[in-house]
């Protein structure tokens, strides 16, 4: 059954319901507090950059732990406007800092925005189609059309679709949707509603 998660600065909403909200004054530690809210033991989370942490947290409430679709028939399709720009800038500053000749290999890894695909596939045992698109449209329409094609061609039985951007601690947003084959008949309506919920609000917060 379709399920969606929207993360904006200080809040996580699951199917429209407020799931987690950072306490006033603790927005800076939003990602750490949100991780602790989910009460999972996943040390690799702390090594991820913020972009990956955003995607990781967005998928947590909606990807079922037990699902009917086989791992090879489960896909993940993501899009972003900014990609890993936040990590890129940090890495660039470190590389060109006069007093630092030691660069972090881990940080370099996350200058590839598609690293989030690997993180999600490892966590949720997703082995089907992987796709990461950098583009400026803030909606899920293109990914929806691609997902429909993959469902129709029998390549997928379930799919995680997501759009995300991370700029700074108070300037980020994600919108993730979990769909299964049974949702296909209503997918256009689902996407229209989610686009409206996520991106109409997004116009005021993310540019």
């Amino acid at each position, binding site marked *: 059954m379709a399920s969606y998660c929207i993360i904006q600065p200080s809040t996580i909403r699951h199917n429209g319901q407020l799931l987690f909200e950072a306490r006033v004054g603790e927005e800076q530690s939003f990602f750490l507090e949100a991780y602790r809210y989910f009460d999972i033991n996943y*040390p690799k989370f*702390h090594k991820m950059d913020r972009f990956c942490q955003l995607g990781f947290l967005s998928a947590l409430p909606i990807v079922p732990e037990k699902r009917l679709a086989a791992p090879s028939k489960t896909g993940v399709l993501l899009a972003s406007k900014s990609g890993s720009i936040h990590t890129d800038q940090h890495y660039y500053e470190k590389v060109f800092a006069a007093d630092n000749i030691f660069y972090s290999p*881990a940080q370099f890894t996350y200058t590839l925005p598609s690293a989030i695909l690997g993180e999600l596939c490892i966590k949720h045992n997703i082995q089907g189609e992987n796709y990461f698109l950098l583009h400026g449209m803030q909606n899920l329409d293109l990914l929806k059309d691609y997902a429909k094609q993959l469902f129709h061609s029998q390549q997928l039985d379930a799919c995680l679709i997501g759009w995300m951007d991370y700029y700074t601690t108070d300037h980020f947003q994600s919108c993730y949707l979990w769909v299964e084959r049974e949702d296909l008949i209503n997918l256009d309506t689902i996407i229209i509603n989610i686009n409206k919920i996520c991106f109409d609000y997004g116009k005021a917060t993310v540019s």
Partner: protein
Amino acid sequence: MEKQQLVNEIKNKIIEQLNLVDVDPASVSATDPLFGEGMGLDSIDGLEIVVILERDYNITITEIESLTPHFESLNTLAEFVAAQTAVAA
């Protein structure tokens, strides 16, 4: 530096460098495997440890593959650091 002191120093550096927020230093013993079970590190973490060796102990690593036996545990890593820094001194 005493071996145990060096083990603890390296352990704290690894925990800090790898941002192992949920790892209690006291829960990691000197003989725990660094990779897989134990501290649960991966190949990218191994490269971060190389950064620690080069940056903090001034050890030049030319062949990463040769480090494998030294990366078994904190004990073996401390022995490697002690030997390399003794040679340099």
